[in-house]
């Protein structure tokens, strides 16, 4: 049986999970042409919220709207929350347009986390697509800081084109760590691109896996995750109980009241976003769900 995913953030936010805390933008850095990383610090006198890798916050751009955004920073870096945001609409555009010193409202963190304690002693295979690397980055930081607790760390990362690859310097640095393999690919590469071209599932060809000793964490577009799960389960023999994925839906309240993010019997905000695939087997890919 897979371990029960805990919700470490709920208790912290439970005092009034609907009330945003003021946070100041400490830095903004451009990752790609449309994706930015924001670091936020709490207002003076307010302790920064701790979080577990895989959790998300609700970020409120005053007068514009509130958005669920996964935390992409180091869970052991106290006093600061980091988010990587892709500008795809008016609210995300407003969020990435904040400047250093601007204020935002923050609720959370909310939701379930990657089961890093439960998978100690295993090979951890991380598969990310596009901005899906952001919710997985805290898990990678954790594994690299507690390297003896895990065996191999393998990161497979696919993006649309070379310019869309996130955290390029970090990817290179992670790949130089002991017992760590980082493979990247892009769906479309130009003539000057010397890296791999092909969807993220093509990277499996370059792996030697021990399915009984491997646990997989996946985050990316849902259709990509379905293809990846097919590869893991049918071609590689990884058990559904050893596969975890982060699901995205339209989250509003973030505490399971409003029902906007209902997914079959689950609320993504409260029961997820990280799920064991065993729980979602009959749901993933179901029409109109």
């Amino acid at each position, binding site marked *: 049986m897979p371990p029960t995913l805990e919700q470490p953030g709920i208790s912290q936010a439970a005092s009034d999970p609907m009330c945003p805390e003021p946070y100041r933008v400490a830095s903004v850095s451009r990752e790609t042409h449309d994706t930015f990383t924001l670091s936020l610090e709490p207002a003076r006198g307010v302790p920064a919220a701790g979080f577990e890798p895989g959790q998300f916050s609700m970020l409120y751009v005053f007068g514009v709207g509130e958005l669920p955004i996964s935390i992409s920073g180091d869970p052991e870096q106290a006093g600061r929350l980091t988010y990587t945001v892709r500008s*795809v609409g008016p609210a995300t555009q407003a969020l990435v347009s904040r400047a250093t010193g601007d204020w935002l409202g923050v609720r959370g963190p909310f939701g379930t986390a990657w089961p890093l304690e439960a998978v100690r002693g295993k090979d951890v295979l991380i598969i990310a697509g596009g901005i899906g690397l952001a919710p997985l980055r805290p898990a990678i930081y954790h594994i690299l800081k507690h390297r003896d607790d895990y065996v191999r760390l393998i990161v497979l990362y*696919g993006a649309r084109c070379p310019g869309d690859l996130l955290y390029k310097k970090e990817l290179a640095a992670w790949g130089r760590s002991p017992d760590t393999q980082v493979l990247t690919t892009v*769906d479309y590469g130009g003539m000057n691109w010397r890296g*791999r071209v092909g969807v993220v599932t093509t990277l499996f*060809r370059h792996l030697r896996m021990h399915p009984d000793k491997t646990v997989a964490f996946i985050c990316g*577009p849902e259709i990509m995750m379905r293809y990846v799960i097919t590869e893991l389960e049918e071609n590689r023999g990884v058990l559904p109980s050893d596969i975890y994925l982060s699901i995205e839906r339209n989250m509003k309240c973030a505490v399971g009241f409003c029902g906007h993010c209902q997914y079959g019997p689950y609320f993504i905000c409260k029961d997820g976003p990280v799920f064991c695939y065993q729980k979602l087997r009959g749901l993933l890919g179901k029409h109109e769900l």
Partner: protein
Amino acid sequence: MESLEPILAKHAFFEGLDPAYLKLLVGCASNVRFDPGAYVIRQGEEARHFYLIRQGRIALETRAPQRPPIVIETLDEGDILGWSWLIPPYLWRFDARIVEPTRAIALDGKCLRMKCDDNHDLGYELLKRFAHIVTQRLQATRLQLLDIYAPHA
């Protein structure tokens, strides 16, 4: 000189293949090297070989008017390049450009077809292995066509 038989046996494509078949195949095999920028195959030309990539990187490309060649996929160590030698009219459908210095084993298609005609068990084994690769590439191409990382995809 190093025999190619152990190299063929170690390649993922031939994993688990009956050693008797490997002995048949090795007669059609030769070692090849390519430098970056070279074209291993050209669209429309006769497909005389397929390649087991031992080291390096090759880009599969297609051409379109008034734009640079489009890279469809790259192939690396352990991959197979080319199945047009197996299917009439035996013409390449894409270009293959060397990205990184590449070492490979080239297998002569005409030689293989003759051996497969003589030994249908060998032919069936090879067809199964190629069918697996064709299926994998078809699935990957379908996913690629969805352009899943595009905004509002």
